[in-house]
Structure formats: C-alpha cells, structure tokens
C-alpha cells in the first residue's frame, strides 16, 4: 500500500446561497520518496485539496465523501487528538503565503523552537536549538541569523526558514502550497533546488501545489492537472509534457512562455492518441467545454470518461480514439 491513498475525495463549501463543490472525486496515491505536483488556475481547488488532507478546512468547508489513508490510518475518521499528532510530525504543510505569517515581534528562531517544543515536550532547550542549527544548515541560512526578527530576513530567507520549520519533525509527507510564488526567479530556483534535494535525501513524499506548470515540472515526478475542482489529466512528468492529451493541459503548455519563446508541444496535431476508456466518473458534462477548441456534440451531451493512455497516464476527456 502506498504511503498516501486518496480515494474519491469530494470537498464542498457551504455559503449562504449554496453548497459548492470545490474538489470533485479526486483519486491518487503517493509512495514514500515520490513527489506529485498539482497544477491549475487560481480557484480550481488546489489549496482546498491540500487543506482537506490535513483536516484543516475552514469552518464552512467539509469533506462530502471519500477516503484518505495515510500509512494505513484512515485520516478522515481519526480522533482529533491523534490527528494533531499526525499533523506536522508526520505530515507537514507549507501554507500558501506562509512567509508573511511569521509573528513580526518574535524572533524567528524562538518561533521555530516554540513549535518544536510544543510538539515534543520532552526535548530540552539545548537539544531543540541544536536541531534548529542543523535545519538552518540544511536550508543554507547562517546559524548566526537564527535569532533575527522576521523583517531582518529577505523574502527568500523567510521562505527557507518556513521550509526549515516544516522539516523540523522529519515528516514523511510534505504538502507545499505555492512555496515560491511570491519570490523572484533566482530565489525561486534556489528554493526549488533545495526542496528537491532535501526531498530526495530524506526520502520524503511531497505534494507540490502551484499555478505554474514550469515550476512543478522542475520538482515533481508526477503531475496532476486540475480544472474546476476535477483532476483532468495525471501522469508521469515526461508523459504529461511529451504527450499532453487534455485540451486544458495542452493550452496550459502551449501558452507557457519560456526564455526561448512559447513552449512547443511535440505531437502537434494529435490530441487524441489511442487509449482505453476506464470507468465514467461523473454525471456532469466536462467543465472545459465552454473554452475547449475540440468540444464536440458528444462533449455537450455526455460526461467525459477517464481514459488510460498508458498505465501511468490518464485523462478525463471524451477525445480519445
């Protein structure tokens, strides 16, 4: 069994007017030491999915159905006290815009120490300090900066300190939500290299959330493309880049500006490789139908089905041969 198994996970928000589904029947699994990237436009449900795995949804959000199994534990039915022990010690989350969440009037080192000691009350102060020093070495911040205030750090340093904090308890799984979005390309590149190296060295499983497919491609073994609450394409990184099938994935890639111009998809005209249909997922029509250049009558009358292109590459679209 994989370290993490997500089955049919459906998440909704209740508002005054309606109950809106924000993530719809999401399925995936993740092995120890592997990384999966979730990409998609703003509002497609990426953060919602990450938060639900840790049971940290806002009060009007709830899991409608589905299962999350982590290391054999059924996370959604775990008692709160046990869930608390899983959080951060076994699954750490780097929240979107977390680097702006350091308490401005408390030294960063003290904030990390406090977190370590709350989760491990038996550890002595000296041991905890030692641990912070090692973490700082790992994320390459000089040890003499540990007890600076947040404003004395640059954005990149603040974000590296957040990564240090996430690593403090040697988690088995890290969920990183847009960990580099606010940073410039140079700092972003450094942090991505750092995350990748640490993930490999410590054999951590990683869920990496971003709206930037280029960033995800630099870090992750696997890619899941999300559109309006649904995963619409999932596969190994090379498969998704070399044979992107879903029209949204193709649009995402062919509008990606690289330094040499627009990214070019290799198989130019065939968005419909042979594939075997899998089970139909939903009763609703495809969410991309209003923008899709390949939308057909079939797309307007029947819900799309999951298609297997290879055993590791699948697509939710009616387009295959």
């Amino acid at each position, binding site marked *: 069994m994989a370290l993490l198994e997500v089955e049919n996970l459906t998440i909704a928000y209740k508002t005054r007017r309606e109950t809106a589904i924000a993530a719809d029947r999401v399925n995936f699994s993740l092995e120890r030491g592997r990384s999966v990237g979730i*990409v*998609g*436009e*703003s*509002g497609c449900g990426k953060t919602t999915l990450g938060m639900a795995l840790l049971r940290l949804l806002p009060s009007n959000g709830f899991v409608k159905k589905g299962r999350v199994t982590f290391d054999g534990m059924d996370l959604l039915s775990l008692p709160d006290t046990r869930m608390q022990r899983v959080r951060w010690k076994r699954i750490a989350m780097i929240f979107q815009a977390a680097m702006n969440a350091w308490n*401005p*009037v408390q030294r960063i080192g003290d904030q990390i120490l406090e977190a370590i000691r709350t989760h491990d009350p038996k550890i002595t102060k000296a041991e905890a300090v030692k641990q912070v020093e090692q973490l700082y070495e790992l994320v390459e911040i000089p040890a003499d900066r540990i007890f600076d*205030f947040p*404003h*004395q750090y*640059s*954005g*990149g340093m603040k974000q590296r300190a957040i990564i240090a904090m996430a690593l403090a308890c040697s988690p088995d799984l890290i969920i990183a939500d847009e960990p580099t*979005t*606010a*940073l*410039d*390309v*140079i*700092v*972003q*590149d450094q942090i991505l290299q750092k995350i990748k190296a640490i993930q490999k060295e410590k054999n951590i499983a990683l869920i990496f959330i971003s*709206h*930037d*497919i*280029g*960033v995800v*491609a*630099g870090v992750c073994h696997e890619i899941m493309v999300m559109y309006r609450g649904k995963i619409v394409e999932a596969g190994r*990184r*090379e498969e998704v*880049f*070399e044979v992107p099938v879903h029209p*949204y994935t193709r*649009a*995402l*890639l062919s*509008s*990606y*500006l*690289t*330094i040499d*111009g*627009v*990214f*070019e998809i*290799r198989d130019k005209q065939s968005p419909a490789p042979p594939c075997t249909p899998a089970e139909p997922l939903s009763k609703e029509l495809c969410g991309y139908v209003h923008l899709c250049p390949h939308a057909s009558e079939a797309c307007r009358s029947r819900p799309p089905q999951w298609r297997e292109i290879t055993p590791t590459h699948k697509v939710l679209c009616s387009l295959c041969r």
Partner: protein
Amino acid sequence: MPDTPAEPMVQIQGIKKTYSEDRSLFARSAQALTAIDGVSLCIEKGEVFGLVGASGSGKTTLGRLLLKLEEIDAGQIRFQGKDISGLKGAALKDFRRRVQLIPQDPYQSLNPYMSIFDTVAEPLIIHGIRSSEARRQKAAQALDAAGLSPAADFFPSYPHQLSGGQRQRAAIARAMVLSPEFVIADEPTSMLDATISFTIFKLLADLRKTQGVTLLFITHDLAAARFLCDRIAVIYKGQIVESGLSEQVINNPGSDYTRALINAQPRFSFVNQ
C-alpha cells in the same frame, strides 16, 4: 541626429530615492536604504518598455516615482518633455489622467464592495464626467476592449464572482477607461496561470496597437519581457545594469546578473524535443 526627434514619453535623469528610516519597529539601526540609485532611462512614445529585476531591486519604487505617488530625492523625471516635480492643481490632475497603473494583485486591488461598473466608472467621476450615459458608454468600451464582453453582463458583478483573469481584466479596464497615454503594469500576471497570463499579455500588446498607449511592463520574468517588450532594462539594487533591445539583452546578456536571471528561468530539459 534626425531633424525633428519625436519627444520621448518619459525621460528619467539620474533619479534617486532613499528611505531614510527603516519602516519596521525593531531595526537594529536606522540606516538609510537607497531604493533607486541614480537611474536614467528614456521611454519612447508607443513602445513597450520592460523593467526586469529581482524582488527588492526597486521596480515598484521606480513605478511609484513615475506615477508621482512619491517624490524623488535627486534627478529629474520628464513626462512628454515637462518636469513633473512641480505639478500641482489642474496640471497634476491632468497628469493623473494621462498616466495609469495596472496593479500586481487583482485579488487585493479591486474593492470587494464595488460592482464592476462602479469600479470602472469611478475614475470617470473623479475626472468630472458628469453624464451617466457617457459613463456607461465609456465603461462599456473599456470592458469590451479588456475582453469582458458583453460589458453589460459584467456591470453588476462583484470581484468575488469573477475568476482571477477576469478580475485582472477589470483592473485593466479601470486603468484604460480614461484613455491614458502611459500605463505602468506592475507584474500584472504573477498570480495567474499560464493560459490566463498569456491572454493578458496579448491583451496588453493589443491595447498598444489599437490605442497607441505606451507601456512600462514591470516583471521578474525575462520570458514574459521578451514576449511583450521592444526594449528592456535590467535593474539590480536600484541601478540599471543593462538595457537594450529585448532580443539583444536575452541573447547576448552583458552582465552577470542578467545571465543569472536567464539561468534561473524554468527549462524543460527532460523533454526530448
């Protein structure tokens, strides 16, 4: 020298901006921070000029100085030949109409309590367009031009009902509604996915073509700058380290810093192209 050189849109001569004290409460020492350190630039009429640099290099500060939201400490900024330092009263108001900003974050820049119509029409009220019919018409034109059409469908919407890309289009419509001559776009797509950013870039290129607007495009993304800009300047720690035609700067970078920016761009080396 040509006989009648066209007057540049913006000429910047040796400007400086120093923040004398640290904004924060707990600074170890109140040392001065020179955010813009002797910048000279010339932006021609009708061009898209890119200002590229890392976080904290001074891009937004330079934009704010050009918008006269802050005052320079030294040097001179000329807009269409006229020094902007002394602008007051009606002249300043006229300047505020002709120079506009497209902000970075459409999630924070739009007032959540204002409908899209009010958002786009507000600058018209400020600039004395009294007839409500005229306001409707201008707002509709601006929304259409920004790709939110039919405009009337978007009038009653509120920001939370729009997607990120639609919000940024509304912000662009608001910036364009007074037919400005010079627009500063400060990282207008850093929050948006590639498909949406791409359409926004195309929209900006289009507005330049159809409305002849001059654009200063601020970004840390050289790939985007190359796509959109005629010329770019690379800024590092408040100083311009290199400038020239976009292609030239990217293909033959003349500074280590530009090379570092180029090397940090995502590449898909694992794809066997």
